[in-house]
């Protein structure tokens, strides 16, 4: 039997709201990409019939709109939690303003992407590169909401979509808004592929329980990493 014994500590990293946000977001992205694809390139399902008997395309669009609202409010909530959540969920993780974060980005590129050096990355939540990529995805989320609700605003008199009506003249017309919305969808797809792969990769290499941490919230962190973390954050609550 293969086994190992190393000093580990369980750390509660992802609070319940973060986990709920994550899975709602995942559901929304999957639903929106599938329905978005169907809307953009409609399959020939119904044929030789009258419009009176069908509404499947309208239903697909309806599902897209419902998930769009869910996605939007979920995103708003996560932004709020970036100010209210624990230290791993805070906004300052996501924007590399400190020298240490840039240093860690370089380290992660060397260790995990190019694999030219071997070194343990000392972050407990997201590493700095991952956080920065998430920040970029948040920008894509924002643009996707702007363009999506911008297109929606012309057929709605509701307050929320109307707030986004300005994006259409800003981008010169619906054609460009639609094109940008379509291109950004590919950003979501590419991100998801890499995201899932990297979760597999990190669990395979580090065995900190990264996959299950998004279910239960807890990670197994090496004691020396915890010690380094506590040294850095002396004036804050210790783990």
């Amino acid at each position, binding site marked *: 039997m293969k086994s190992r014994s190393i000093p580990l500590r369980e750390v509660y990293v992802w609070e319940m709201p973060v986990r709920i946000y994550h899975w709602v977001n995942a559901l929304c992205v999957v639903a929106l990409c599938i329905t978005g694809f169907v809307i953009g390139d409609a399959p020939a399902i*119904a044929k030789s019939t009258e419009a009176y008997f069908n509404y499947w395309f*309208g239903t697909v669009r309806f599902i897209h709109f419902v998930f769009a609202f869910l996605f939007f409010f979920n995103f708003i909530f996560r932004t709020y939690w970036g100010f209210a959540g624990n230290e791993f969920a805070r906004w300052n993780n996501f924007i590399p303003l400190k020298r240490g974060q840039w240093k860690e980005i370089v380290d992660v590129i060397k260790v995990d992407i190019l694999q030219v050096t071997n070194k343990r990355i000392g972050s407990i939540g997201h590493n700095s590169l991952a956080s920065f990529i998430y920040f970029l995805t948040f920008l894509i989320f924002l643009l996707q909401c702007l363009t999506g609700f911008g297109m929606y605003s012309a057929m709605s008199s509701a307050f929320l979509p109307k707030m986004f009506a300005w994006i259409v003249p800003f981008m010169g017309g619906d054609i460009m808004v639609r094109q940008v919305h379509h291109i950004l969808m590919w950003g979501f797809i590419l991100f998801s592929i890499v995201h899932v792969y990297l979760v597999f990769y990190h669990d395979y290499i580090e065995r900190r329980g990264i996959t299950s941490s998004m279910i239960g919230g807890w990670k197994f962190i090496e004691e020396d990493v915890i010690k380094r973390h506590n040294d850095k954050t002396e004036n804050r609550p210790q783990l």
Partner: protein
Amino acid sequence: MESNQPSFYEEARRDGVSRKDFLKFCTTMAAFLGLESSGVTQIVEALKTKPRLPVIWFHFQECTCCSESFIKASHPIVANIVLDKISLDYQETLMAASGYQAEEAYKLVMKNNPGEYIVMVEGSIPTENEAYCCIGGRSALQILEEAVENCKAVVAWGNCASAGCVQAASPNPTGAQPVHKVISGKPVINVQGCPPIADVMAGVVVHLLTFDRIPQLDALGRPKAFYSRRVHDTCYRRANFDAGLFVESFDDEGAKRGYCLYKMGCKGPVTYNSCGIIKWNDGVSYPIQSGHPCIGCSEAGFWDNGPFYQHLPDVKGFGIETTADKIGLGLGIATAVGIAGHAIVTNIRKHHEIENIESTVSETNKE
């Protein structure tokens, strides 16, 4: 304003239009403009009492299809008067005068009606080299700047004057610009379309005369009464769209049954115009009703967002006919290959971490 100018009504009566037809026209216009029934009286009053609008009508880089459209209005009273009598003012295509007399007529309009005359523009203005469009030895830009200085408002007819249309399409050799990009300080009404619907053009003129102010405009300068809804949202084939019934090719059964033209590249979902409601040629038909997808002619840059028969525009810089989907799929495959490579390299280079023999743990701890 000069009081010796006859009103629209007087001109129309002189041309043999009956009072009944005149009232029909006023009622139609009120309906197009979305006015309540009292608005009809206002229009009748205005057209009977107010003198005809003094108009200078310029043709710059264009094909005159806007003028062609205007004379095909279902109730051509305004069009007839504006275009027939405009020869007294200035309209390059239709005026009888030429040379010195023409220039004189145009200067007279500006002199006699300061702050009152309307400048109507067909066509875009070259800015790359102004010599691309010169009339009477002066460039389009010079002429326009002079005419606009004392005008009341500017009406930009059609896509050329509103957004540059085909002249401004990539690579835009003349540096063609729409009116609102080259002048400032005056209200510009963008009456979009290639050409605009005749009744929309008449509606704008009637509105200017009746209410003495420009109609309510959207953020792109188009009159809201005519451009606030998508062709798609007012299309009689819309039920087929929601039902997922699409024409797959121009000669299939769906085309015969009048299914939705979405998959034939119809730009109705991204185009704001009144084609689905007012239609063309006295309400006879409009492109979609005739079985052809909308090409989006009332949207800026519709030439560059082609092809006409493909819903998703081509992405520039990736060769001919490359859509966002093709690029996305390519990047997706590249990502998958990259991931496979990374996974293989990981198994080789991170062998120690994966096996993680206890003795190596202390080694990594030392680092």
